[in-house]
């Protein structure tokens, strides 16, 4: 049984704003019967067409999909369209007091429907798409190559979700988007996308700080290992553990696929180069076997 918060249960058992708005200004539809969940969102704007004065929904899905839709309609009422666009899937989950990670895709669906509704209202061109309103292929920003054939999810959409939620594993991507949750055939492709997103994050210029206290230096080393280096190793099935930091000497032990790998020396040099780039020029990485 899922461990739902009292707020999720309340919004599931007593959903707010179920129904439709006949003269709605904006309507957003995502999901399909085949996907196992779908949401149709209706928005009514004020006279100046700025603020959302009413929101209604219809949802096919599990308890957390219904609760996420109900929460979304409550959250956007009274907001301007720009304010509404700033609502993230995490905001929806937070409003509900949290969702189990396996159910995060429900909050993503809410956020997606909201975006679709507003994009359509603003007259952004809709691509021709099939009648199933597949996740991620429903509006122009997320056009792209279909990665998950079972749920019809595109690479552009997956990259957005990976980036905004800082996802690092294929399992997380499945929990957030359902991609890879059926036949699993696209999991290697999802891993590639994670690597791409991580790579792109690195490409953004990050400068080495001028001066560092010892404490700051240790913190920064740990941060770079966690954010930049370990996720890279994970994509190859490897890992490392930080053993000790003594001045400029960083001791690491390689784990999983990296442990005992013939090229772990090269990996150690890669780690060293990265740390020299982002922390301090004098860093020396030593591999220890622990």
């Amino acid at each position, binding site marked *: 049984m*899922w461990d739902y918060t009292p707020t999720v249960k309340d919004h*599931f*058992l007593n*959903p707010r704003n*179920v129904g*439709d708005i006949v003269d709605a200004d904006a309507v957003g*539809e995502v999901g399909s*019967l*085949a996907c*196992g*969940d*779908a*949401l*149709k969102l209706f928005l009514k704007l004020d006279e100046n067409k700025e603020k959302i004065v009413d929101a209604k929904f*219809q*949802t*096919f*899905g*599990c*308890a*957390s*999909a*219904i609760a996420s839709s109900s929460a979304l309609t409550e959250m956007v009422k009274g907001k301007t369209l720009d304010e509404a666009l700033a609502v993230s899937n995490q905001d929806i989950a937070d409003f509900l007091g949290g969702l189990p990670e*396996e*159910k995060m895709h429900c909050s993503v669906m809410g956020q997606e429907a909201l975006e679709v509704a507003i994009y359509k209202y603003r007259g952004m061109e809709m691509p021709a798409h099939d009648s199933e309103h597949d996740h991620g292929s429903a509006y122009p920003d997320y056009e792209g190559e279909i990665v998950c054939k*079972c749920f019809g999810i595109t690479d552009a959409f997956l990259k957005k979700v990976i980036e905004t939620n800082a996802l690092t594993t294929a399992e997380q991507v*499945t929990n957030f988007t*359902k991609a890879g*949750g*059926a*036949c699993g055939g696209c999991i290697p492709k999802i891993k590639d996308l994670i690597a791409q997103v991580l790579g792109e994050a690195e490409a953004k210029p990050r400068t080495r700080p001028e001066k560092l206290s010892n404490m700051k230096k240790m913190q920064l080393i740990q941060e770079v290992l966690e954010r930049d280096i370990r996720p890279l190793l994970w994509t190859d099935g490897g890992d490392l553990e930080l053993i000790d930091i003594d001045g400029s000497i960083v001791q690491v032990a390689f784990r999983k696929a990296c442990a005992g790998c013939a090229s772990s020396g090269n990996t150690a040099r890669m780690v060293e180069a990265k740390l020299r780039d982002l922390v301090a020029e004098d860093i020396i990485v030593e591999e220890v076997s622990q």
Partner: protein
Amino acid sequence: MKEIYLDNNATTKVDEAVFEEMRPYFCELYGNPSSMHFFGGQVQSKVNEARERVAALLGSQPDEIIFTACGTESDNAAIRSALEVFPERHHIITSRVEHPAVLTQCRNLRQKGYRVTEIGVDATGQLDMDELKNSVDDDTAIVSLMWANNETGVIFPVQEAAELVKSKGALFHSDAVQAIGKIPINMAESQIDMLSLSGHKLHAPKGIGALYVRRGTPFRPFMVGGHQEKSRRAGTENAAAIVALGKACELAGQSMNLENTVVKDQRDRLQNALMTAVPHARINGGGAERLPNTTSIAFEFVEGEAILLLLSEFGICASSGSACTSGSLEPSHVLRAMGVPFTCAHGSIRFSLSRFTTDAEIDTVIREMPPIIAKLRQMSPFGREFLKAGV
């Protein structure tokens, strides 16, 4: 809130008579059955009695029963044994709708280089016997087919399948965890070599199972390190649970008739009432021979987890073959194999009854279920379209 427990294919209540039978074997008669002294000896004789009771239910000899920790262990032991017995054979046959205890193991063995054939089923959930016939060959070590399906209750013609397989020299195993106690089984008139059963599906506690191994069938133990169970399953006997399983099997034999009359009538009444009250529903496997206690109904336009949680508000416990309850996102592999469309696979609910189910409980479900489906359909964009169309 008093529970209305209609999830007996998941697990069952321990019968109070079973509990009373096992109670002394914790604090009073706690001896080790293998000990030489009188204190262990009296436990040994009770374990033997339990073995006879299990054998009686199966129509087998007591020495054909090996006690294990669960149905999953029995399944694992049977398949592993066959592969060790026939090291020169590298082919395993099973079905697409098996329990994960069999299916996952076979798929792991495939990774290790074994050839695995998964026989398909038709739209009613019935086994494709022609495919089985065409798949068995000289390389086949074991064929493992379930007696009855846990999700739909559909009964496979395992006796016929065993005859076919035996003629090719392979071993035949059946996971009969769901069938035992619900339909009569007589191993004396069967060609099945190995058969798994689980205590907690027939009103014994969790943590006890058994594997039937026909006399003369070569067997290699899965658990080694002790002489227990004639060295076929090492480890100190779980005496209390074995005693419980024996009693549960005795009671199952006595209530077999009840399962196929009273329980079956309750199941039929529930299923007919729901099919009448709720449009756009279908019985999964309705066209095949099924266990008397099980019905799986697919409701279109709604999702299973939402149904279960609303049922739960009335104390009604059922289960779903749907995506979201199981942690995996795909609808049940059983319903997919039967070709049940995604659209209703997501909204499938399984009710599984037992001899403890009352008519009043069935009445409550018949009363509460249709409004729940209506409420969710009212909320669902697809349900609303269908309501509007007035179909």
